[in-house]
């Protein structure tokens, strides 16, 4: 324990240097801005910044990236409360009650409970990270290639089993990512795979191009197909951004419940921020003493999910830092950033780059404080961003994205790849395929293949190694459960001869 406090103290020494404070400020400001703006999220932003930050000190870069991640979560709530289009997927639930509150003139309270809830959750999550990460590190030191392989299988099955409504669709999204990750030269044998004879593809497809294609180009196409038929219902901030004592009393328990829920699910090797927000919404609705207000702007419905998504963002840092296992699109891009600096997140990162890890964790406290200031007294500045005309905004995003891709290698092939992936991204969006698993597959694909090969090399080609090692076996069993667990109620009712519905989180917020 003293050990941890010492490390954290050292972390604060790193995070409080003027340079790192500046990068934290840049990060949270940028994060809030892109969180408020629809159509652009932390994953895309960090992906675009990867090439330009390649020469930055890694600690500063990660302090900035996590500021963007957290800031995106704060900012996302603003647009989902004031406009009916949420800025981030993790803020979708916030908008259900939040926008209703705004329309009834309680926008100030909704924004305040979201910002303060995010602050509470951010601190709870960081505290939990400090307490639990060293324990996970000790366990993770026991892991070999077989266990890492099993962990990634678990991550994949939970992602496909829990995201969206259709398992086949989520499965395809994941395998599409794995397929894209296979393009290029096989490092172990030097064999070119899926390069279609294009020279530029030998190096593989940069994750920046994929993120830009799926998130920016696909999004703009989607917007183009709907923009003239949809209307944004923007509510401007009227009163002061604060809460009445009654609203405080109704909010604080929801914040704490949301924080615990968000961190515990977010920190699992397959969490993500969307699931805890839906769960938090449902729990708050069930526990609420003001049931008649639900659907008309119940403050708990903003406080809980908003705390949950921030805590989940903090939670996602745990598997990322301790196991090198990303659980969200943003965390996946951050893993790529680690690789760019030649760092491999995992238990050894805590030993070899203690300054970086603890500096990053300490900066989360500082970033949260900055975000509270940015999102309470300064909220009106961010609301101004919502006044940017949509056509200009989306066109501008594409200009930035295209130049970002271009600056990577000055190659037209990259731009064409981005375009093609964008078309695929639009088709996926149109047909209701989730995009998160694709990014996860792209980033983890090469790694899972590597661990598979290592494990089999160690066992001399014996595939039973995965089920003969106890830790690996347990993880794989959980993975199978995660994949088929949600189907069990349906199977049971089908056996009984009744029609059942598959349990899926996010199906209907009820």
């Amino acid at each position, binding site marked *: 324990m003293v050990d941890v406090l010492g490390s954290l103290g050292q972390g604060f020494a790193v995070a409080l240097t003027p340079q790192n404070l500046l990068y934290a400020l840049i990060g949270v400001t940028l994060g809030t801005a892109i969180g408020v703006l629809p159509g652009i999220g932390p994953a895309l932003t960090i992906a675009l910044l990867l090439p330009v930050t390649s020469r930055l000190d890694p600690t500063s870069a990660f302090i900035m990236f996590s500021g963007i991640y957290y800031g995106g979560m704060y900012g996302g709530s603003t647009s989902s409360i004031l406009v009916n289009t949420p800025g981030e997927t993790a803020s979708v639930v916030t908008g259900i009650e939040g926008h209703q509150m705004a329309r009834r003139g309680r926008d100030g309270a909704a924004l305040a409970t979201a910002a303060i809830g995010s602050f509470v959750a951010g601190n709870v999550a960081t505290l939990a990270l400090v307490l639990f990460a060293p324990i996970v590190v000790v366990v993770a030191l026991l892991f070999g290639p077989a266990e890492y392989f099993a962990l990634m299988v678990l991550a994949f099955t939970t992602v496909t089993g829990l995201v969206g409504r259709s398992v086949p669709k989520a499965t395809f999204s994941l395998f599409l990512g794995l397929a894209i990750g296979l393009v290029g030269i096989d490092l172990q044998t030097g064999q070119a795979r899926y390069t279609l004879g294009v020279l530029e593809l030998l190096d593989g497809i940069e994750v920046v191009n994929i993120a830009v294609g799926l998130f920016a180009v696909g999004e703009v*196409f989607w917007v*183009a197909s*709907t923009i003239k038929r949809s209307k944004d219902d923007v509510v401007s901030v009227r009163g002061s951004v604060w809460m009445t004592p009654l609203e405080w009393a109704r909010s604080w328990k929801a914040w704490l419940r949301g924080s615990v829920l968000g961190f515990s699910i977010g920190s699992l090797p397959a969490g993500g921020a969307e699931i805890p927000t839906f769960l938090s919404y449902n729990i708050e609705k069930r526990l609420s003493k003001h049931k008649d207000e639900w659907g008309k702007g119940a403050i708990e419905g903003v406080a809980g999910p908003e705390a949950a998504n921030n805590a989940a963002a903090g939670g996602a840092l745990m598997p990322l830092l301790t196991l090198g296992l990303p659980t969200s699109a943003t965390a996946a891009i951050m893993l790529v950033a680690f690789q760019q600096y030649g760092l491999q997140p995992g238990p050894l990162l805590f030993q070899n780059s203690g300054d970086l890890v603890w500096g990053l964790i300490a900066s989360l406290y500082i970033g949260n404080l900055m975000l509270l200031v940015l999102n309470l007294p300064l909220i009106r500045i961010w609301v101004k961003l919502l006044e940017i005309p949509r*056509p200009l905004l989306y066109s501008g995003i594409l200009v930035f994205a295209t130049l*970002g891709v*271009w600056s990577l290698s000055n190659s037209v092939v990259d731009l064409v790849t981005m*375009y093609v992936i964008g078309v695929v991204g639009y088709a996926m969006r149109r047909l209701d395929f989730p995009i998160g698993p694709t990014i996860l597959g792209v980033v983890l694909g090469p790694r899972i293949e590597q661990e598979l090969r290592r494990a089999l090399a160690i066992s001399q*080609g014996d595939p039973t190694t995965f089920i003969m090692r106890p830790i690996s076996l347990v993880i794989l069993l959980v993975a199978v459960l995660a994949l088929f667990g949600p189907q069990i109620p349906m199977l049971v009712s089908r056996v009984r001869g009744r029609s059942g519905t598959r349990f899926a989180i996010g199906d209907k917020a009820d």
Partner: protein
Amino acid sequence: MDVLRGRLADSADRLAGATIGVFGAWFLWQAAILREGPGYAAVGPRVFPVIVGLGILASGLALGASPTRRPEAESDIGPERDWRTLAGAAAILAGYIVLFQPLGFVVASTLFLAASSWNLGSRSLRRDMVAGLLTSAAAYLVFHTSWDWNCRPARFHSNQPLAMSPKRANHSAFQWGRWWTFWAAWGKALPSR
């Protein structure tokens, strides 16, 4: 009407399932014709692609066999999309990519932003042109300067050679003098490496 929409969503899913199936089959075929190469490996370069190919094939077949209905909330705009605006967006972006190099990114980006905004419904062309110019200037500032200007200031005064990152060997530290490249980019391509 709702029944019709449901059917449309069904057939779209079946079509998607079939397309995915074909893609999976192609992927497997490509895996099958991969040469194992002379190097020894316990697991060759073919194994993982085969697993991925089978996964794609299986997900396509499963989707084709049991299409999912989308909830009504998502189809409130109706099954018919604004195809004209979408086609416009696709064409304008393609034009941007084609003209990116010959026109230089400042001109290309300004034209793109104006055209794209017009396509998406904006009707103030002059404002959009100005915005295009500002956006491309901002994007240039972000992407064509290295971000370490306040981190190692000593570099600006010393004669030691700048450390080169392997990926972007042509980028030196941020210097105001490099701004000429921005203005030089008018009418011609970015300085390539």
